[in-house]
Each structure stands twice: as C-alpha cells, then as structure tokens.
C-alpha cells in the first residue's frame, strides 16, 4: 500500500529542503497527512498580497500551514484565491526570510559591496536608530529626513508625522491620477464596478482577467455569463481579449483618441442618458463648451492616432450609447493610465461613464457601501504634528492637485539633481528598489544617505543600502480589520489574524512604530491617561466602535461580518457642486484643461528607438514581491521579451534567443518570445524580475527589471506637461531591439 509519506519522500521535496536551516521548524510540513478527519484546524483570515483582501481559510496542522483557499462564504472573492494567495504560505516559510535585526559593519554601500551584516538585538537596533535619528536631525535639520513607505498601517503614518518626516509612496505610478480625476468628476475614487449587471462593457487597455485582481476578474466573468457584450482596446491580445466579443489592437496611447471620439459620437447623436445627465451632472451649465470642445475629436481623426477604424469607433460608441447599462471600467492596470496621457484618459473615461448615466447605478461604476472602522487618529487623537518642510525632495508641492501622495517617479531626480546630498536619514518600509523607474539612479542617490533603516520580510535589493534591517511579520502573522471597498454593494468586514505565530524575531508594524515612537516622540504614542497605546487595544477599540463585537478576540472567531443593506443609488455626489462634473472648473482654476484634450504619450517611436514598450504585470506575481516564492517562480517563469515574429525577423532575433532591449534610460537583456499576440510595433516585457540581491536564493540574479528601461522624470517635466501626478514613468518609453548572442 502506498502512503502519502512515500509519495512525498520520493518526490524529493523533503530531501531538497532538508539542508535548509529551517529544517526543525518545518519538519512537520512534510509529514504524512493524518488519517483523522480533515481539516484539523481551519482559521479564517484575509489575504494581503494585494489590497483587495480576499477572504481566506487556512488549514493548519501542527502549527504549519497546509493549505490556503478562498473563504466560501465571502461574496467578495466567492471562495476563490489567485495563484499568489494560494501559494503565499511559502512566503511565510521562505528560508531566506529576514529573521533577526541586523546591522551593517561595512560602511561602504553599493551593489558591489558586502554589507557584512551582524546580528543585533531588537533593543540595540531600536536604540541605535533613535540615536542616529536624533543626531542627524540635530545636525542637518528636518529636511534631511525621509520616509519611503505607504501611509498604512496607521502606526507608521503617525510615526512619520510625529517625527516631521516627509514621506514618498508609489501612488503616482499607481492610481493617483485616477484619484485626482475621480474626486473632481464623480466625487470619489472607487474600484467598484457592477459588471455582472452591465450589458455593454468597454475595456481600454485593461487586462482585467489575468493581470488585475481576481475580485475584478470575477465581475467580468459574471458579465459574460449574463450575456454582456465586451469590447477590448489593447495593443496586446490578453486573456481579457479572449473574454471579449471584439478585440481591437489599438496603438499604445491611442486609446485616449478612441475615448474622445466616443464622447464625440455620444454628444453628436445625443446618445447619452438624458435623465441622469440633466439631473445629476453639470452638463447643462457647460453644454456649449462641452459640445464645441468635442467637435474636433471625430472618429475619423481618432483612426489616425489609434489605428482603430473610424467605422468601428462609430459603431462601438453608438452601441455604448444605446445599450443600458453600459460601462467603461478603469483601473490602474489600464494601459492608458500608465502613460503620460493618463490624466486626460481618466477624465475621458469618467465622462463616458457619466454620459452613460451609470454612476452609482446598477450595472455601473458605484461607490462601495462600507462600514466605517474608526481610525487610530480618531480613537486616540495625536497632539499637533510638527510642520513639514515646505520644499519636498520629490518636488510634489509644484503640482497643485497632487494631494498627499509622494512621488516615486521624481525621487531619484530630486535626490541627485535638485537637492543632492540633502537626504541623510531614510526610513524605508517594505518597498522595492525595482519599483522605481531607473533603479540604478536611485541606488546612486541612496549611497549618499548617512543612515537608512529598512523594514522588510525578505532580503530585497534595498539591503545593499541599509544600515539597519528590521525583520517584519507578513500578513499570515498579523491582525487587522478590513472593510471591503472592492465589490461592496453592501458593507462587509473581514478579519486578518495570525494563522501561525511569527517566526524567529520578526515583529509587527505596530511594534516597530510604537517602540520607535516611545524613544523619539513619546507624547504621540500615549493615551490620555498617560499609558502607552498598543496595537491590540486599538483593534479592540475599533471592533467595539464599529459594532463588530465586544473585542477583537470575539470578532476573530467569526472572522467575517456582512450587513444586509439594500442598494440605494446616490442622488448627490461628493464633488464641490454635488453633481457629477463633466467640465471640471477646479482644473480650469489651476490652469489645467477643464475638459480632456488629446495629447500623445510622452515618448514616441523614432529612428533610434522604433518600438513602443509595454510592461505587463504577470498574473502569477505581485509586482516585485513574490519572485522568491519557488512555486510562483516555477509557474510564473522568468522574464521575457515578447516580440511579433515579423519584427523579430527584421532584426534576426530567434524565438528563445537572447535579445537586448535599449531605451534612452538603459538596457536589458532577456529571452525572446515570439508571438502573434502583440502588435508588430510593440515590445512587451513583464514587471517584477531582475532582483540583484544574492540573499534571495530563488529570485536573486534572475531576469531583468523593466524599470531599467523606463526613464525617471523631473518634477518640472511633470508640471510642464500638465500632468496631475507622475504617471508617465510607469511604462511610457520607446525602445530598440537587437540580438544579444
């Protein structure tokens, strides 16, 4: 009789990993599955690979995660997970994980230097950070301090604010532009699309099925089940194109032209939702401006900019206008939003949805119904924060509508050219060097920083520049409450809780922030009675005040709360006028275009660089963070360069051969994959590979980083182009290719 044990032993898994230092801890991982009824212990939690927080059920046996699957009762992800979530137990058990605080003993920094790490205690690490922080602040002033971090968890936001640190994050490269536009057109930003009730769906550039979030892919799947018609404009044939009734290989950046021409047709033929537009928008007030503005954007004109036949645009626009509900979903994975002309593109898509009358209507773009979970600041309000420096190193203050986001895309330029040598202390929290355009340029800048603290889960490339490394917990070890914003037609909340204890000396975000806060800004980390605030108390307070239960321990047993609530469409919108704004007076007031104008993407093909570059996010990976997961690494493969066979032939590139891709920013060498699924004038590369860190045993040194090709930008460039944030830097780039063999 064969047993599970013999199968496992002989497939070699146990043998291959026996040499790992984690042997003891994970010995039980490879044990025979037991014969008692399964599952032995099932814990409800939620994924944090991406921000959609899919409900998860973790099966744990003897303290080791056996399997992760979707939470069946969760309507959000419908009981399913993507490959990243399913395989995420591996991140937890990664033998490469950062285990202890470490300090650099080699003062020289750079990719060619061995930092010579030594293990230190948490107390020594935190005391050293506090001492160095004080020293640098006293010597150079507040302008020398920088946090490279998200604003969540709220603990970190409080720490940075209390210390008067300027903060940069990735939002300019993500959906920041869409937030700027949404707030002023429909009142608020939202990723909630009721596609399952839509009849006509136009997807600009968006690979919704494979490269976005599963919770959104499910919407389109149900739309197809319900018989919706789907039109996809994308330079690449993707799994979304397979789900589409028609796929049009639009020229990169040309989707803006198509969207403008669709608005032209809707206005020309009065195919908009008259009732909605009259009642809830400012169309009436600006009708003449709007109509005359779009007069010039005819489908015939758009054909020249997009390669989509005018007849197709006429027909699609008419169908879009005549079918209810019709919707044009937008997301950060929309290719358009990744180009420099994303600002008018987001605006044009917002107008299409307003004209279709679908804002907060069934089958349309709605605002999630959420339960408000009180924030840290509302539970324990902080004393007034110190004022931040007026001039930021990323130059964001020059952009009048940028909001509170920092800018990845201008940081390298700010640190090296505008304010060289200004930043002396960096708190770097869970970001990856390869997420920045031209990471090498940023690396040069990081060499000049006197003291850098790095908080991370794995030893990523930023380690080369850090002075102290703090090992943090990952999501399967942390606690949180998450009110859903994707797919929330009625409110629901899911728990995040430790599935197994945090290994080694890893610590949570709240521990790190509070311990540093105690040392550097104690008044911000105390309750009114003078005792220290704590992560567990915050969760208890939040649970109670949100009405989820007596305390967190009680709620986490259920793990999930859904509130029955009928969907009542909104009649007022959160804009300045209470109406949806097609014409945006706030843009006009800041000398921006109040209505979207055509403009080409930043970089266009030339004799030197004849091809458009497109970067894609492989569905098996979360950006730069999961390549060291051996399961995902195996199924997601390595980096590649997709080229059309006719283009490859022109340059003598063979399938599977090495190809060199050059741009004005740099070059990369990868394996060519010839495919009929891309336009002949397009070169496609995946994002997320090319980690340099030798401490990553699976991902280190493999593949290339697409960002080596993408030019970083200066704040003046962004401002002069009339961009609302720095979205041009994510893939707006042209390249040349040649064989590299």
């Amino acid at each position, binding site marked *: 009789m064969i047993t599970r044990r013999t199968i496992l032993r002989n497939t070699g898994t146990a043998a291959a990993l026996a040499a790992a230092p984690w042997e003891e801890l994970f010995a039980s991982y490879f044990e025979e599955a037991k014969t008692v009824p399964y599952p032995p212990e099932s814990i409800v939690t939620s994924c944090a690979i991406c921000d959609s927080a899919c409900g998860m059920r973790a099966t744990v046996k003897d303290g080791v995660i056996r399997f992760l699957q979707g939470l069946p009762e969760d309507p959000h992800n419908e009981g399913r*997970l993507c490959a990243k979530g399913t395989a995420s137990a591996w991140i937890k058990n990664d033998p490469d994980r950062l285990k202890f605080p470490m300090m650099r003993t080699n003062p020289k920094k750079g990719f060619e230097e061995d930092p010579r790490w030594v293990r230190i205690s948490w107390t020594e690490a935190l005391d050293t950070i506090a001492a160095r922080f004080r020293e640098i602040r006293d010597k150079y002033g507040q302008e020398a301090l920088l946090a490279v971090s998200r604003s969540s968890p709220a603990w970190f936001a409080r720490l940075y604010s209390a210390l008067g640190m300027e903060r940069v994050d990735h939002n300019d490269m993500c959906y920041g532009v869409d937030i700027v536009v949404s707030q002023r057109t429909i009142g608020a930003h939202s990723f909630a699309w009721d596609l399952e009730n839509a009849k006509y769906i136009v997807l600009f550039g968006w690979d919704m099925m494979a490269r976005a979030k599963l919770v959104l892919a499910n919407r389109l799947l149900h739309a197809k089940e319900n018989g919706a018609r789907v039109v996809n404009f994308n330079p690449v044939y993707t799994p979304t194109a397979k789900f589409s009734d028609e796929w049009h290989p639009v020229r990169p950046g040309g989707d803006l032209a198509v969207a403008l021409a669709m608005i032209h047709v809707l206005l020309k033929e009065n195919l908009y939702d008259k009732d909605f537009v009259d009642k809830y928008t400012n169309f009436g007030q600006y009708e003449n401006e709007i109509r005359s503005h779009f007069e010039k954007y005819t489908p015939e004109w758009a054909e020249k900019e997009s390669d989509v036949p005018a007849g197709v645009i006429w027909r699609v626009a008419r169908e879009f206008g005549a079918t209810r509900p019709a919707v044009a979903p937008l997301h950060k994975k929309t290719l358009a939003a990744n180009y420099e002309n994303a600002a008018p593109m987001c605006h044009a898509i917002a107008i299409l949805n307003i004209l279709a009358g679908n804002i907060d209507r069934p089958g349309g773009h709605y605002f999630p119904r959420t339960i408000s979970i009180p924030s840290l600041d509302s539970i324990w309000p902080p004393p007034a924060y110190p004022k931040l420096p007026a001039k930021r190193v990323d130059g964001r203050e020059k952009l009048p509508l940028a909001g509170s986001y920092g800018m990845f895309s201008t940081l390298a330029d700010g640190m090296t050219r505008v304010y060289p040598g200004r930043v002396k202390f960096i708190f770097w929290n869970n970001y990856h060097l390869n997420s920045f355009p031209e990471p090498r340029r940023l690396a040069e800048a990081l060499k000049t920083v006197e003291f850098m603290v790095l908080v991370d889960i794995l030893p990523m490339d930023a380690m080369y520049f850090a002075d102290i490394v703090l090992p943090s917990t990952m999501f399967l070890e942390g606690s949180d409450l998450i009110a859903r914003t994707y797919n929330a037609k009625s409110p629901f909340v899911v728990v995040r809780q430790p599935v197994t204890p945090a290994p080694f000396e890893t610590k949570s975000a709240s521990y790190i922030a509070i311990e540093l806060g105690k040392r550097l800004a104690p008044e911000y980390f105390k309750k009114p009675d003078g005792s220290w605030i704590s992560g567990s108390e915050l969760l208890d307070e939040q649970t109670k005040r949100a009405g989820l239960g007596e305390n967190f321990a009680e709620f986490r047993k259920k793990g999930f709360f859904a509130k029955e609530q009928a969907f009542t469409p909104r009649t007022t919108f959160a804009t300045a006028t209470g109406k949806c704004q097609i014409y945006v007076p706030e843009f006009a007031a800041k000398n921006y275009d109040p209505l979207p104008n055509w403009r080409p993407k930043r970089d266009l093909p030339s004799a030197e660089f004849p091809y458009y570059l497109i970067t894609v996010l492989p569905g098996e990976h979360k950006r730069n963070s999961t390549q060291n997961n051996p399961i995902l690494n195996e199924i997601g493969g390595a980096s590649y360069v997709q080229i059309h066979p006719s283009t490859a032939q022109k340059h003598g590139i063979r399938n599977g051969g090495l190809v060199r891709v050059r741009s004005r920013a740099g070059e990369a060498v990868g394996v060519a994959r010839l495919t009929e699924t*891309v336009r002949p004038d397009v070169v496609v590369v995946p994002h997320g590979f090319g980690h340099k860190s030798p401490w990553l045993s699976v991902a280190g040194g493999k593949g290339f980083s697409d960002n080596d090709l993408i030019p970083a930008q200066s704040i003046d460039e962004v401002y002069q182009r009339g961009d609302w944030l720095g979205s041009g830097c994510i893939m707006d780039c042209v390249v040349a290719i040649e064989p590299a063999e």
Partner: protein
Amino acid sequence: MNSYGWLIDPKRCIECSACEAACKQWNQVETGVNVRWRRVLRQEAGAFPNVSVTAVSMACNHCENAFCQKVCPVKAIWRRDEDGAVLIDQSRCVGCGQCYVFCPYGAPQLNPATRKTSKCTMCFDRIEQGLEPACATACPTGALRWGKWEEIRGKGADRIPGFAHPRQMQPHVRFVTEPWRS
C-alpha cells in the same frame, strides 16, 4: 467502483495558474526541477490581428485504460478502486521513463534528481476526507471542475483540437465547448 474525472472549460480559463499553485502547495511537489503535475497549457492560433489563444489546465486524466500502467515494467502503477485515481508507487518506480513516453498527456514526469517519476494523484488524500482536489478547489473561474465521472461523462465533448484521441485510453476528462450566451 467509484470514479471521478475532470470537466474543463477552456473559454473560462484566465491563465492565472491558481490550479498549479494549489497543486504544488497541497502535494508539496518539488519545485525547480520542472515537475509540474498540473500545468496550464497555452496554444496560440492564427496571425495578428486575427489571433486566438486556447488555455487548458492539464494533469493526469486517470484513464480507465492507462497506458502508463500497462507499460510500467516494475508494476509500480495501478488504478485505485476507491476513486479511480491512477497512482505511481514511488518505492517501486525505477525511473525508466516508459510511462511518460507512452502517456499522450505528459502526465508522468521524471524528477532528474531523484530518478523517480511522479504525477497527479487526484489528491486522493483530499478525496478520502470529503474534499475536492486542490486544483479544482482553487480554480477561480470554473475552468477546471472535478466530480463524479458518471455525472461528467455525458457533458461537453471528449476532446478539443490537439488533444489525443480518447478512444483507447478512456481518459476521465471532458471539455465544455458551448460558447458564451449572448
């Protein structure tokens, strides 16, 4: 005898590879040696811009008349009565490679390090506990489903283009071919 099979709907496959990840996670299949019990196969057809892609999640189809079983010189392969899962006894396998030469679906795969051939077990250990195989549990779109063969065998088609003719092996897999309703 109870038996089970796969129902595959290629039009629903989004190439996310959740099935592969779940398979590897549950079965702890060794990584890095290109042993992938389940894998998403992708086939392009046509020329730009009239191109199409078919993606199918493929693993062992647990044939009623399994060639691998027939050709194994050491009789390491058998088909269980309980669920119809075709299994390879790892303690008997000598890594000769006959089974993967004869399997038209590429199911048995040789681990070059251990010189043993392994393949999909239909997660018989999950079935025994009343659970579905890991891959079918994970598939987010219903492109890969699993169930009682008596319920599946009458559904859809017995093959899609490029799939080996099922007449002799009697694989337990069917393909949904109906298009989306419009």
